[in-house]
């Protein structure tokens, strides 16, 4: 039964990534689950300079979301 449920994740995007995807905070349906990379499909980002945190822990573009997570995707910004 569970496999047919639509699962959700909370996504927060910072900096230019938010501009490219057109939102800063959003709850997204992820079907049965998906890789972080698929959230950024079709968007020109520099993968080496992206930080991914899932529930506050370091993750990466290949990490798999299964539902219920809080995902933050941010650039390596400097600020000086």
């Amino acid at each position, binding site marked *: 039964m569970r496999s047919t449920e639509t699962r959700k994740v909370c996504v*927060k995007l*910072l*900096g*230019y990534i938010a*501009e*490219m995807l057109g939102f800063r905070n959003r709850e997204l349906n992820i079907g049965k689950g998906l890789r972080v990379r698929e959230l950024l499909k079709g968007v*020109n*980002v*520099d993968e*080496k*300079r992206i*930080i991914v*945190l899932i529930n*506050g*822990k*370091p993750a990466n573009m290949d990490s798999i979301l299964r539902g219920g997570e809080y995902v*933050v995707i*941010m*650039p*390596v*910004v*400097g*600020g*000086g």
Partner: protein
Amino acid sequence: MKGWTGRFLRVNLSEQSTSVQEYEPSLARAFLGGRGFAIKILWDELRAGTAPLSPENILVFMAGPLTGLPVPSSGKLVVAAKSPLTSGYGDGNLGSRAAVMLRRAGYDGIIIKGASDKPVYLYIENEKVEFLNADDLWGMSTFDTEKKLSETHGKDVGILCIGPAGENLVLYANVHSQEGRAGGRPGMGAVMGSKKLKAIVIRGTREIETANPEELKRLGEEGYEEIKKKPNYDFWRRQGTMATVEWSQENSVLPTFNFREGEFENADKIGGYAMEKIKVLQRGCPYCNMICGNVVEDAEGKRVELDYENVAMLGSDIGLGDLKKISVLNRLADEYGIDTISVGNAIGFAMEASEKKLLKEKIEWGDFDAAKTLLEDIVFKRNDIGRLLANGVKYAAEKLGNNSKDWAMQVKGLEISAYDCHFAPAMALSFGTSPIGAHHKDAWVIAWEVQVGRESYTREKVAKVIELQRIRGGVFECLTACRLPWIELGFELDWYPKFLKAATGMEFTFDELYRIADRIYTLIRAFWIREFRGRWGREMDIPPARWFKEPLTKGRYKGKTLDLEKYNQMLSWYYEMRGWDERGVPTKKALKDLGLENIITELEKIITLK
């Protein structure tokens, strides 16, 4: 020599005399430029124990082999001296037309000794150097000083100046240019003020001779195009460093209430998006196509350029969540010529001291009017609290006692810049080992640390801090070019040896550039040890107790603190990797390996080397 002009202008203010020194090419090969030249000169020529505000201190302005050439973000220079705030080595860089003009006038640097009896400013036009009366300028803000000097000398000059804070010898007064470009946090402006030197005006009309001008032009054009293609270029131009407010808040490193917390409830009101709503103008340094100077209109209807550090330290760190009011404080700091980071720390320290009843004055968190008054009390040293805080938070804590040193947020006497480190051990090490005291310039390791995990205290983190110190504190501070194309947009480091080859005709590998950086770090360390004599110890490299003893009370990292034992382990690894002993003192072997064997005898007069 090509790329370098091979010449320093030497100025003696006591005698009002000048001379030109043609330096040995070996100096350029061993120390590259900028910070490298600055520390070499200060080590060789400054007598140990010199009072920083005496005429005997040496004020140095240094450019590097890329300064003023048509390659990305090369319009910067370094200002250095023995710091009156820390009593150790102090420097800073700023973007200014003066950097370009200095090189076009035919100099890689200016070395200033002595002091004038009366206010003067220097006017330099190629070979001509004049000492001009600055009575009318004394007391003027940095903005008005530049305006006046542009009226007198034309708009096509480069100007460096100080404001009232420098004149009044506030120990964290800095040097200013172009309404908001500032450098020399550890009191370089006070050193300039102590010499009664109000400004330096430079007009240079010569070509900077390079080894291969066509190749340099081609590479430069390609470089600028490459920067424009980076995915975050457009957004960077919109928000610049101000985007970091949101980033720091998300990662709980936004300094809040004098570094008690890492999250601020009004962060969204003071960040990049809030800035965009009040932005009126954008500007940049010479030879830069990233132009990150975001000019806004403040609560008093005046214009000011905002940056992350300024806004965090004059905003969240003092509990102020109104960007237009923060902008007023930022503008006043720029007009008076005082460092925004240190003065933000000083105000935050005073608010906490007031809360703890260590001060009779009532200064509440987030009280804009009180903060503004206090800022002026400090600049003009017009009352006890102003005089207390004008000497920095380390000094203020020594006077106030009651363990206030635990929350006087500084390392080596320099106030910490805007990253809270309760839960960022590598960034704490970066502040701890920065060669000018707590500053983010040398090893901004926080983004990398967030990426790899914040809990751990590993050799890998220590190695990363050193790698960043080599690149940022070493290579960029010497070139002198801005590090932001690389760190912010991902402009590859490989460009720089190519630029250097075209400019100087010399091949530099990264191994050699990093060796130069290590030589500079070790010489700066030797400078500190020589100045501190018996008082030097590894505690000089440890951040304040707050981060170790007082956990975060809010946010997703509630309860986190640094672990002192583990921090000390990282510090030991740091020393080991640098070839320094357990006291943080360079070993004889390290000095020999870096070609610094000639300083062994002098250091051994002070301390036994291992």
